[in-house]
Structure formats: structure tokens, C-alpha cells
């Protein structure tokens, strides 16, 4: 620092002489400039240091978008020819469920951004308006909550327009429709969040849990009643009519999802003449205006609420006393610590520590429960779809792949960053009489055994509901064990090989290059395992169990479908699993031994 005390002496008067409170417009522009500057810097950093990751993300997104587009285009062509009226129901069901998800996701994200972030703490000490801070953080929360909708919804809506041969106006209106719709549930979520924090800060977790349980219960009931009572064959006209008749609740005209789907259907309508075309466009614009007006009204309400409650809520929340834990050590932890030999105790202690961190991190286990719960619900209803037997084996393997893919997102998101986070606390572990290898092995064991029970349980449920033979169930379970092992090995091994010791956020660690590589490797591994196991098994079931005659006797396909063929493929799966487990682990162990934190 310079030796002169102050290059610019104090003005001597009040800062009001040189400073002034900004108007709301000026504040909005300032926050906009800030966001643009941060976005530009992030993009430049990514372009300079993470080109591979960026290219991979763009490529995978484009592939995902194109696949979805193809799928939706086929589906709309099929529906358009058979059940054109079903599309309105489909849109309503999709958008209404999306609306509920957006309410919750924006509310939860805004809670983190507005009340728990260091940025909010900084802005609270500056002369910024409460509603400007809210608007700034709301935009961020809305973007994070809804980008999935843009990625999922845009191929669906573009496909719909192309299948219907819609005018250009439909495509021009797509983005305004999507954005104006997203604002409504997002604002409702943010209003609920601010109201809950301001007026019942101590009950916010209970209130949120109650809402989530109520919505999950409603969703379960709707799904159960829609699927369990359908008697017609899957994918037939009657099946669609019966299923969607039970979802007519989503067609309430007061719901923004109905305004959106009606507006889109009107915009996509191809009139026989100019008059009809103008009438359809007018209708579409009326629905868009309805969405925009309601979105703006809700934003006004949210801004008003922020002005009155934000500081109050922030203060109330900061004044909360964390609950004290009554039982220092749970029975399960105690049992785990005491099981086995004394030599293995340090390893078990590390596993118990990770287990405790997992249990106390609501974001981890709630996502785990939601995803695996939804999968369980789907598998539980698998029989209701009345798949033909020829499809059952294939669907069993697809379900196995889905379980693997969901597990891979968890291993990438939560297991991969574990070593990096441990590295930040290395001064604790580094001084303990624990070998570094044990730290890596403890993460692997935690991930492997943590994933094994729910994954094998789900695969068993899926197979039982699909009515697959015992032999197929055994094959699926072996594949599932190998998937759990391999995915844990990849995440832990790469996490130890490429740790990010400077970053404290697990989300940021997992979205770095190492995390992306882990996800890609995991996806490839799942694909390899499922294809290796599925082909011969499917042929076996096709030739033996269900009496199909598609495979010529004596050819290689027949051999692949025979018992030796299946045993060979199963052996290949085991080898793949072992390679995916131990190669990354060996690399990770070596790198972690040499790590200098």
C-alpha cells in the first residue's frame, strides 16, 4: 500500500454531497450490467480454460435436443393421425406438472440465493432496494429452475409446429410463450418463499415438507388412479382416452398451463383462409397477453412483498438457533463402527463420517429419495402398461440402464467431489494416523454399498412387475452390482485423480472438467454393460422363453442367445465392471498418495 495515508482526503461533509440513492431504473440497469459482466467473464474463462468441457456440453445438449425432437416428431405424427384431441390433454398434463415443479424449484433456489448467499449479505449492506435485490436473485433462480424446461420443451414444441405445418408466427411466438409462462409459477414460488421466511421462519422446513408431501401424495394418487384402472391395451386409442380422461383435472381454465397450451394450439392452427388464420393468431396473442399480464401482476406483488419483508425475513432467519442433536451417535453408526476387526476401524470411522454428512445434507438425500422414489413408482406400475412379452425383456434392460444413469448422476454430483472436499480439510485427516489409501477406499465403499441396496431393489421390483423369468432377474442383478461397483470406482478414482482443492462448492467441483469426464465415462460404461448383457439375453428369451422364431438355428445369433453365449456376455460384464472399478481407483490412489495440499 502506498505510504501516503490517503490520496484523497475526506470531503469533510456528509457523503450525501457526493452520493445519492439510485432510482429503481438505475438500480435495475446496474444489476443488469453486473449480470452481463459476470456472464461474459464466465464465458471467457470457459473458452480459455475449459474448451473441451464446453464443446462436450454443447455437443451433448445438441444430441439430446435432436433426439428429443425426433422422438416428439414421431409421437406427434402418431397422435395427430389417431387422436388429435389428445394433444391438448398432453400439453395440459405436461405444463401443469411442470408448473408445480417450477413453483418448488424456484422457491428453493431463491431461498438459497436470497437468504443464504454471500452475495445477498454484501448487497444488504449497500444502499440497494430490497425489491431490486429480490429481482436480481429471482432472475438467477428462475433461470436455474427453468433451463431444463427450455431444453425439454423447445424440441417438443418445435416438433409440434413442424408436424402441424404451422405458420412462422407459431415459431416466433414460442419463446415469448415459454418465458411468460415460466415467470408465473416461478414468481408464485418466490412469493411463497419470502412469505414463509418472513412470517414463519421456524416452520419453513416443516411447511415445505408438508407441501412436498401433499404434492407428492396428489401426484401418486393421480398416477395410480390413471394407470391402475386402465384396462385397455397399451398405446391403443382406448388406452390414451382412458388415461387422459383421468388427467382432465389439469384442464382447469384458471391454470396458466391451460392458457399456455391453448395459446400454443391456437398459434399452431393452420387456417383454411386468411380470416381463420387471423382469428387463430388473435386468440393465441390473447392467451399470451393473459400470461404476460398475470406474470407482471405477480411480479408487482412479489416486489411489494420483498420491499416489506426481505430484511425482516433475513433478520429472522439469521436469528434462528440451530437445533441441538440429542443423540451424539446413532445405533447404526455404532454398529458399523464396532463391526469387524480393529485394524479396519479407521476405514469404518471414515465411512461413518461420510454417512453422517450425507444424512445431514438434506439436498443430497432428498434428491436421492425423489429420483429413486419416482423410479420405484414407475416400476411399480410397470405391469399396468401391459407390455407384450416380446417387449418385457427389452424394457427390463432399459429400466436397468435408467437405474444406472440416475446412479451415475448421483456418483458424479455427490461422490466425485468428496475427495476434493476432503482435500480442503486435509489438515484434519493428514494429521490422523490414517493411510491416504484408506480415505479413497472409504469413499468407494460408502458409494458402492450406498447405491447397491436401492439399485438392486429397484431392478428386482422392475423385473418382478414385468414378470421376467428368474434367469433374467439374476442377469439383471449381476449387471446392477457391476454398475454400482464400476460407477463408484469411476467417480472416486477420477475424483482422487483430478481433485479441485480450491473449490468449496460440490456443485462447482462436479461441473468442472473432471466431473464432466466422470459423467461421460459413467454413461459409456452403462451403455457398454447394458448392451453386452442385453443382446444375448434378449435373443435367449426371444428364442426360448417366448417361443419366437426370429433367430435362425445354427447361426452366431443363435449361439449368442444360447446358455454359453449368455454366460460369455455375463463374464464380459463382470470384466467390464472390474476394469471400470479398479483402473480409475488405481489411478486415483496413486495420484492421491502424491497429492500435496
Amino acid at each position, binding site marked *: 500500500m502506498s505510504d501516503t495515508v490517503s490520496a484523497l482526503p475526506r470531503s469533510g461533509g456528509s457523503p450525501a454531497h*457526493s452520493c445519492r440513492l439510485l432510482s429503481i431504473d438505475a438500480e435495475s440497469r446496474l444489476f443488469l450490467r453486473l449480470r452481463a*459482466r459476470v456472464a461474459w467473464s464466465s464465458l471467457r474463462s470457459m473458452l480459455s480454460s475449459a474448451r473441451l468441457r464446453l464443446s462436450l456440453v454443447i455437443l451433448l445438449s445438441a444430441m439430446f435436443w435432436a433426439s428429443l425432437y425426433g422422438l416428439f416428431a414421431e409421437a406427434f405424427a402418431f397422435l395427430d393421425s389417431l387422436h388429435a384431441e389428445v394433444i391438448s390433454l398432453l400439453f395440459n398434463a405436461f405444463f401443469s406438472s411442470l408448473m408445480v415443479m417450477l413453483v418448488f424449484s424456484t422457491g428453493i433456489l431463491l431461498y438459497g440465493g436470497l437468504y443464504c448467499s454471500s452475495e445477498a449479505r454484501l448487497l444488504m449492506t449497500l444502499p440497494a432496494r430490497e425489491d431490486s435485490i429480490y429481482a436480481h436473485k429471482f432472475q438467477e433462480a428462475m433461470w436455474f429452475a427453468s433451463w431444463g424446461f427450455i431444453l425439454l420443451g423447445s424440441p417438443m414444441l418445435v416438433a409440434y409446429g413442424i408436424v402441424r405445418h404451422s405458420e412462422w408466427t407459431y415459431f416466433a411466438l414460442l419463446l415469448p410463450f415459454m418465458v411468460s409462462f415460466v415467470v408465473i409459477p416461478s414468481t408464485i414460488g418466490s412469493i411463497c418463499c419470502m412469505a414463509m421466511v418472513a412470517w414463519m421462519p421456524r416452520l419453513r422446513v416443516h411447511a415445505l415438507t408438508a407441501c412436498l408431501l401433499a404434492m407428492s401424495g396428489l401426484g401418486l394418487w393421480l398416477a395410480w388412479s390413471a394407470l391402475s384402472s386402465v384396462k385397455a391395451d397399451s398405446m391403443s386409442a382406448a388406452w390414451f382416452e382412458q388415461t387422459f380422461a383421468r388427467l382432465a383435472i389439469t384442464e382447469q381454465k384458471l391454470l396458466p398451463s391451460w392458457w399456455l397450451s391453448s395459446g400454443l394450439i391456437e398459434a399452431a392452427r393452420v387456417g383454411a383462409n386468411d380470416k381463420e388464420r387471423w382469428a387463430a393468431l388473435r386468440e393465441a396473442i390473447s392467451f399470451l397477453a393473459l400470461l404476460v399480464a398475470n406474470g407482471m401482476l405477480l411480479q408487482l406483488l412479489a416486489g411489494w412483498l420483498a420491499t416489506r419483508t426481505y430484511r425482516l425475513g433475513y433478520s429472522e432467519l439469521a436469528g434462528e438457533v440451530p437445533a441441538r442433536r440429542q443423540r451424539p451417535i446413532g445405533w447404526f453408526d455404532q454398529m458399523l463402527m464396532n463391526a469387524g476387526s480393529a485394524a479396519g476401524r479407521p476405514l469404518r470411522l471414515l465411512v461413518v463420517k461420510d454417512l453422517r454428512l450425507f444424512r445431514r445434507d438434506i439436498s443430497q438425500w432428498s434428491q436421492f429419495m425423489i429420483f429413486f422414489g419416482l423410479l420405484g413408482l414407475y416400476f411399480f406400475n410397470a405391469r399396468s402398461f401391459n407390455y407384450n412379452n416380446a417387449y418385457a425383456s427389452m424394457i427390463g434392460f432399459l429400466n436397468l440402464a435408467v437405474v444406472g444413469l440416475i446412479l451415475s448422476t448421483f456418483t458424479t454430483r455427490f461422490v466425485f467431489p468428496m475427495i476434493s472436499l476432503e482435500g480442503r480439510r486435509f489438515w484434519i485427516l493428514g494429521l490422523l494416523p490414517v493411510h491416504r489409501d484408506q480415505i479413497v477406499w472409504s469413499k468407494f465403499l460408502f458409494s458402492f454399498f450406498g447405491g447397491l441396496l436401492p439399485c438392486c431393489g429397484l431392478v428386482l421390483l422392475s423385473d418382478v412387475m414385468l414378470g421376467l423369468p428368474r434367469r433374467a432377474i439374476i442377469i439383471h442383478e449381476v449387471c446392477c452390482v457391476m454398475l454400482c461397483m464400476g460407477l463408484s470406482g469411476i467417480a472416486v478414482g477420477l475424483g482422487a485423480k483430478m481433485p479441485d482443492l480450491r473449490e468449496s462448492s460440490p456443485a462447482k467441483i462436479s461441473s468442472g472438467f473432471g466431473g464432466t469426464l466422470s459423467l461421460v465415462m459413467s454413461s459409456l460404461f452403462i451403455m457398454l454393460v447394458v448392451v453386452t448383457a442385453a443382446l444375448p439375453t434378449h435373443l435367449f428369451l426371444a428364442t426360448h422363453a417366448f417361443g419366437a422364431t426370429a433367430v435362425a438355428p445354427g447361426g452366431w445369433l443363435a449361439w449368442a442367445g444360447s446358455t454359453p453365449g449368455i454366460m460369455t456376455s455375463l463374464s464380459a460384464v463382470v470384466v467390464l465392471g472390474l476394469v471400470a472399478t479398479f483402473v480409475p481407483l488405481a489411478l486415483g490412489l496413486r495420484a492421491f498418495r502424491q497429492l500435496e495440499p
Partner: protein
Amino acid sequence: MIEFDHVTRTYGPKTAVSDLTLAIPRGELFALLGPNGAGKTTTIKMLVGLLRPSRGAVRVSGFDLVKDPRSAHLHIGYVPDEPTLYEKLTGREFLWFIADMFGMPRHLATQRIAAEIEHFELGEFADDLAESYSLGMRQRLVFAASLLHDPDVLVLDEPMVGLDPRSVRIVKDLLACRTREGMTVFMSTHTLAMAEEMADRVGIMVRGQLRFLGTVGELREQIAIETTSLEQLYLEITDPKASGPVREFR
């Protein structure tokens, strides 16, 4: 300049700050001392508007932090114990953001940003992203940002954490100079030597109550023990074995 008017703040059943009444005039450097959990951070958070008092009022330059927080913030500069920056902004961009947030005229902002960059020797890394800064660099940038709008009141929470000895010396000189020019400084610190060297008055907080308020000289007179060290005086006052009601030394 700073007024705490019968301020109480509770966290559930626990009282973090109890009936604090304190006035700090213009141009005074006040050091708040106390053991961990005494209520210093709560007091500072109320002073910068992060927390609302459960009872009473906090005013800066006559503006109530609850009723008119924005006007009060125009008069406050704040250096928190953990510096918060935008990782994807450069130091210079961060200073411009702060200057714009305080509505500083363009020419004045340009002049002051250049001066603070020079003063805190930020020039070498002012155009690097903040994500590459060390703790000391971050702290210097936050100091620069807090002084940019020439506040009437500077609030410092453990200001010397992360600073090297040279930077500590410069900050001390800066505080002395600014207080002579009329700035009021409210500082929470565990560094007793700094409080002894710099503070016009010290306050010692124990279990949410201001146990002593006055100059270091007055403290020595009241405690009347054979010592010249503030450390021993502090330990005497904050002795946890001295249970029961808090005894005031004023």
C-alpha cells in the same frame, strides 16, 4: 454519529445483546472487545443492517437502520470478517460496481477508484478476476471499496485478518488519519494491542452486556490491579469463572 438506543437482540431463548445503549461521536475510533460468543458480531450486524434489533433502535448519522436502511447505508462503509467479492469480476470492476451502487458521479468515481487502487497497491492485480486473489488481496480490495464513497462511519469486523504486517501498519495509519478528518470507526477485534494503540474508547462485552466502556486508562483505574497490560485487564473482566450477574465497570 452512531447510536445504540436500548438495543436487545435475542436468538430464540438466548439473548445475544442485552439493552445496549451506546453513543459514538464523530471522529472517534471505538474498539469493541470480548470473548467468542459475547455478542460483538451481532452488534456489528445490527449496525450494518443485516440484523434487526428485537428491541430498541440503531441509528447512523441520524438514520434508523430499520426504518430507513438505504439512507443509513449511504453513510456506512463496512469491512466484514470474511470478504465477499464477485469471483468473476476484476478488482476494478468491483470498485466500479460499488461506486455506481452509491450513485457517485462519474468523474468523482474515476478519481476515487484510481486513488484507492494506488493507496491499497491494487494496481498490479486490479484487472485480474477476483477468483485469483489471496485472502490479503481480497481484504485490501474490500477496504478500498468500503472507503470509496467517503463514509461517515466505517464498520470493521476483525479487519486485520489476512493482512501482512506492512498492510496492517498502513491500515492503522489510514484509520488514524480518517478519524482525525471526522470519520467514525467502529471496530470489533481480538487484537488487544491494536485496540490499546488506536482506540479512543474501548467497550468490553461479556455475555451480551457491555461490561466496560471507556478509555484504556480509565479501565486501568477502575480495575486497580498492578498491571499495565490491556491483556491482563481484559482477562480480568472477561473471566468466565466470574459467574453471576455481569459487573459493570464504567
